[in-house]
């Protein structure tokens, strides 16, 4: 059979009941303007930004190298080769200093035991 003329299964009652939100539900409140560049903690900025490249093999491993915090802050602000630069609106000085200390004093986690 020609796949092009196969009818699509109609979006029926099954899908509708699976969609959790009904028209009666109260919409969530709008988010406040949050101070851009301020992060809840060094751990959060590490996980949500740095770790996405620096623990996945995309960028170099930074943990356990006792990298000087000033070096880290300088690379973050200026970028380096493929590493993008992060302006103050993405991470403010206080958050940057705290994540730089966090990385500088971090230990390289032991590789997971082979199963």
């Amino acid at each position: 059979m020609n796949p092009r003329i196969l009818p699509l299964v109609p979006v029926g009652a099954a899908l509708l009941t699976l969609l959790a939100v009904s028209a009666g539900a109260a919409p969530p409140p709008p988010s406040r303007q949050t101070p851009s560049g301020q992060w809840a903690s060094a751990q959060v900025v590490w996980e949500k930004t740095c770790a996405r490249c620096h623990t996945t093999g995309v960028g170099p491993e930074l943990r356990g190298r006792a990298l000087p915090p000033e070096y880290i802050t300088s690379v973050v602000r200026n970028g380096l080769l493929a590493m993008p630069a992060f302006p103050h609106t993405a991470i403010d000085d206080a958050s940057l200093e705290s994540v730089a200390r966090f990385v500088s004093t971090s230990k390289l986690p032991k590789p997971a035991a082979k199963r």
Partner: protein
Amino acid sequence: MPSKKQAPVATPATPADPAVLPAGVSAADMHAAIAKFVAILGPQNVVTDADHIAPYTKVMIAESEDLHRPSAVIYAREVTEIQQILKVCNEYKVPIWTISTGRNFGYGSAAPQSAGQVVLDLKHMNRILEVDPVLCTALVEPGVTYQQLKDYLDENDIPLWLSCPAPSAIAGPLGNTVDRGVGYTPYGEHFMMQCGMEVVLADGDVLRTGMGGVEGTSAWQVFKWGYGPYLDGIFTQSNYGIVTKMGMWLMPKPPVYKPFCIRYDKDEDIHDIVETLRPLRIANVIPNAMVFANVMWEAAAIMPRSKYYDGIGVTPDSVLEEIKAKEGLGAWNVYAALYGTKEQVEVNWQIITGAIKASGKGTIITEEEAAGTQPFDYRAKLMRGDMTLQEFGLYRWRGGGGSMWFAPVTAAKGSETVEQTRLAKEILGQYGLDYVAEYIVGMRDMHHVVDVLYDRSDPDEMARAHECFAKLLSEFGKRGYAVYRVNTAFMDQAADLFGPVKRKIDQTLKRALDPNGILAPGKSGIRI
């Protein structure tokens, strides 16, 4: 109890005069404009010092950062501030380059098209104004990131999915959409899923597009066209206004999500891939913006090329054959997904596997078979609008941090992909550069995205990459092919490909809407 003495809060100094000036603006006028910006925004929101400016000068394109160095960066938080800033810009003819989240990597990053423009960074305007879980819409400000929106949906338990570009974790929906960026879900053509804007015009007027001008409307985020001429398009890839709010449609989280890969062994298979899958895409059997990624794009996601090749210039075909065999990669690798109820997904899965079988080529890999390995894992994330930066792996392929996206539009026909692939590979080869490419499949078009990767720390290679890019544009242009978007170094050359009448109309609109030419001069080749 004696109260603790508060440390005195340092008052930021008035910013120094900028190191560079915009074309045609005197130092005295710039000084006066900066003083007025400070009066509007406060000194902490007007910066000219090297430390604050540096992040806005980091570019990946093959031109000196000096050609794109801003004079100052200013941060606004309110529409009323933007209106006042524009008054000053008009008075002193000071140009401003607006960014929202400023992650336009490979297209110019956060730097302006020409030196001296003031960057207006709207990252502080980051309110998620509304998410309607019933109509599946959102209204956001420019500074909202995809990560922020994802966190908001998760925290409020709203079962809606985003569609994001590959650097999802740090980019944002407004900036991406107004530059007509793309993602990988069924909502991957982002501008198609945009609905309603608020725009501050150069004269300070605030326009709401679509239904937005109707007092008391409940339809701003649900009906795109409004009444009369449809205007949203002229505020994308343009410099006619500053977008301060944007509505968008979000996709309901499907009960079942089934990402998959189809691996093809030979370069020439691109023809049959297109012919086999186009009908399924047009019929919405494959509903998402699937991709066809070539071997080097895939390989870059898992390793540097030095693992197999330490030489210079183009990666030899023999090396690519070895990589394919040893790393289990295809010459072309299709990533697509199914979304829906169990029954819908099953029916469409049967159609797809049947079509692949009938075509006589292609090996299907399911999520279970890929078992959490890269690049499948990050592709699966992108096709459900999740957060990742894994595609930055592209930059370790050759190293050196240089990247420019050459992204010609292709009609979704096998013959055309064969021709474009051959041509791109040939031209890149003349300059010693690799063909690292993917096709992102639209409704009937494809974005043929080639990452022109080069070593930005090597002036010679940078000059070659620049020349190569110009030649790609001109040689493709001669054959009737043009790009969907381009970096700030090549905006005029790309605009020329669309003909003199288009350029004239672009300019007519510019003169009408921004007679002093203060908004992002040079964007898409448009000036007064």
